[in-house]
């Protein structure tokens, strides 16, 4: 396969960026998208150019590090798929592929396709935990949890923190990410003691980081590689509202 690539190149956070065209011959349809990028970078190194910087690590769809906006879609054209799990068999010979970084004020570009997502860490630090010190836990089976609740909590907990929801949202809202963590802990008995405080603190941190609000377009749910449900945003809003009303 022969591909035309248009890739965002930006030397550093402060430099101006631009789209640069590349042509890649002999792309194998069995390659993953990132392997295609590896091949491009090999060529660039051999030609004496600087390779394209992009984030990636596990390459099996779970670490959440890869983050490309491909042809106008977060993680590319396939649903439920991270960029590292996207394969070239879904593209055709002669295709033009436009590759950009996540675009959001709260995710500044570091270089080329790499962005700074530390805002997500700060939101979790604001309350995305159960305050339990090592060593003080009761027996794991002391407290039965209905399977249905455990399963719902698990579904919310599968968020990989990649930021596709933010990148795809026209408001750059982080509510799917924040809602998933608030939901997980509010559905479990272990999360109850700090339930209200958690919702308030995480939502306030989210606002402080400069993420936008939700206007119910549902794009985040569609583009989420782990299929996190938008119900989590509704649950977050309910949790936040209840907490605010109860706030002393």
């Amino acid at each position, binding site marked *: 396969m022969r591909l035309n690539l248009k890739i965002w190149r930006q030397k550093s956070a402060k430099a101006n960026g631009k789209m640069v065209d590349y042509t890649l011959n002999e792309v*194998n349809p*069995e390659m993953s998208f990132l392997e295609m990028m*590896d091949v491009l970078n090999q060529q660039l190194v051999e030609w004496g150019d*600087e390779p394209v910087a992009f984030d990636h690590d596990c390459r099996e769809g*779970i670490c959440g*590090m890869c983050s490309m906006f491909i042809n106008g879609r977060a993680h590319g054209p396939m649903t439920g798929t991270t960029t590292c*799990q996207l*394969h070239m068999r879904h593209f055709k010979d002669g295709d033009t592929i436009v590759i950009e970084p996540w675009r959001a004020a709260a995710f500044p570009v570091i270089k080329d396709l790499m962005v700074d997502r530390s805002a997500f860490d700060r939101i979790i630090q604001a309350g995305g935990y*159960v305050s339990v010190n090592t060593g003080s836990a009761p027996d794991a089976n002391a407290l039965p*949890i209905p399977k249905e609740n455990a399963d719902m909590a698990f579904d919310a907990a599968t968020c990989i923190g990649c930021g596709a929801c933010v990148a795809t949202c026209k408001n750059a809202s982080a509510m799917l990410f924040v809602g998933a963590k608030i939901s997980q802990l509010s559905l479990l008995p272990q999360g109850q003691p700090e339930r209200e405080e958690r919702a308030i603190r995480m939502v306030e941190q989210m606002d402080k980081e400069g993420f936008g609000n939700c206007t119910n377009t549902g794009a985040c749910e569609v583009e989420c590689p782990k299929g996190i449900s938008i119900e989590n945003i509704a649950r977050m809003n309910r949790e936040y509202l209840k907490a605010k009303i109860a706030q002393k």
Partner: protein
Amino acid sequence: MSVLNSKIPAGPLADKWKNHKNSIRLVNPANKRSIDVIVVGTGLAGASAAASLAEMGYKVKAFCFQDSPRRAHSIAAQGGINAAKNYRNDGDSVHRLFYDTIKGGDYRSREANVHRLAEVSVNIIDQCVAQGVPFAREYGGLLDNRSFGGVQVSRTFYAKGQTGQQLLLGAYSALSRQVSVGQVKMYHRHEMLDVVMIDGKARGIIARNLVTGELERHSAHAVLLCTGGYGNVFFLSTNAMGSNVTATWKAHRKGAYFANPCFTQIHPTCIPVSGDYQSKLTLMSESLRNDGRIWVPKKQNDTRRPVDIPEEERDYYLERRYPAFGNLVPRDVASRAAKERCDAGYGVGQSKMAVYLDYASAIQRYGTLEANKLGESQPSAQRITELGTQVVASKYGNLFEMYEKITGDNPYETPMRIYPAVHYTMGGLWVDYNLMSNLPGLFVLGEANFSDHGANRLGASALMQGLADGYFVVPYTLGDYLADDIRTGSISTNDPAFDEAEKSVQDQINRLMNIGGSKSVDYFHKALGKIMWDKCGMARSEEGLKQAISEIQALREEFYAQVRVPGSANEMNPELEKAIRVADFLELGELMCYDALNRNESCGGHFREEYQTEDGEALRNDEEYSYVAAWEYGHGKAPILHKEDLNFENVKPSTRSYK
């Protein structure tokens, strides 16, 4: 007399840890506030250690090279975590978990360490549940279990195929809580490039800020390396792209001994290689061997579609060779058996280097059970398949999806093709019972140390060990060491040792940047990987290992003459990061071959072709090799071997039989 003192406490095995905890020194809460601890790596071991130590009051600095501590590769562990809870009432106990782990490790691990691991395993599950980790549960609301290879009980706790993710996010949340209260200072996108030794003690690190390229000095009273394994020396492995040996290798160069480096685990169920461009291999969880059946055609070079090959023309070789454990033999045994069949010409797929993992009979079995449960008296074949597919999807859905994404085949309809791949490294820096290396103040946790898995790790034991070390071992043993440091005061980063360490890092970076050759870093990494896989992989021989050593030496020379690192060192430069890591892999690979050459026996993941039984099983030599091989860095000459004898007082080493 060996220079290695394992410091295993005296007394009966089951009381060692309890007595040790009761007798070691403590640091009082006020003094903890004036003690700094550096934790490198934020996977299960690092995040759990950093969080636990911070909760106790130590001032912690934590480092990771990823953009967030939540990305560490522990996140990719799929199947589960073992614990001797005996919730199944199937005869499990601390002793049985200890015994299974010692036996699974082919009698090349320390009894005392492994027993402690089994003891604390039960606390880990409690801790994780309290953090809100959503383990799989039964309808009654209690925790569910599954079984894993090499054991005959069900003791594995799991969260679908994402157990590592859920456990890591639990540890990450505990870490985040400590960051928020200022007890942990988190440095992401930072890579440790040297350990700083002052007066013979580890007192700090040199780290490179990967965004700006600046070298930074960080001091502390103790340094914990929780930096994972070195499987990427093979280039292709199930590790993340960034997983590397650099932190432990730099410590090795500073004097820390590297133990059993040749003990690498080749995991039997991975998606096979498809081409030269391949960047990594993807594991299919061992839990799939619970229900899947592994087979190859009975005829060589059989090109029929798998569904067209009738039952009587299939060779379920694991069930045939190992009737007692069948498809659930340990990983090393299953991997070698797959290689044996493929080498003999029975492999399947384009490359002929794959075997089938088949779910057809599991779908039928579950479908029939489900129909009975629903009271459907005479379900059609189609209905059984439909119901069975649903059950299999609920258990392994995400793994099946992943397989389909990567290969384009639907595993519900056609058997998966799998082949062994490098997965885990049992070797690592040598540590004593307290998890301290031979360098005072340098502790090593999780996969980065060598301690608990001997020559082969059992499934679902890596998560257990990482969290055991971080939550329940080092918080005790570190205090014993730091009790001498309560009056030391903070360590200055102006000490000449910091100047020297920073200069050596800067010199190495300058050297790499100035080579200006014509070949990419990946070219050398792939070449090294091929040497390692061919000659120090699933089967090793004296001749091959000797060749490998000279080939690696030549490749290293070529690397320093021909590599090209574009860009500059004062910016985000992923090629430079890779070059620094590959330079260390080029030294490690040679050491692994020395270790494999020294060990004239076959045990666990180390299989020497010269040492096998008539029917091709590993032939251990307890007379001569019942020791830990701890290597001292040779500084340009051959590495120096130190031996720690293994004493088995509670379990008598026997030939592992899974027949």
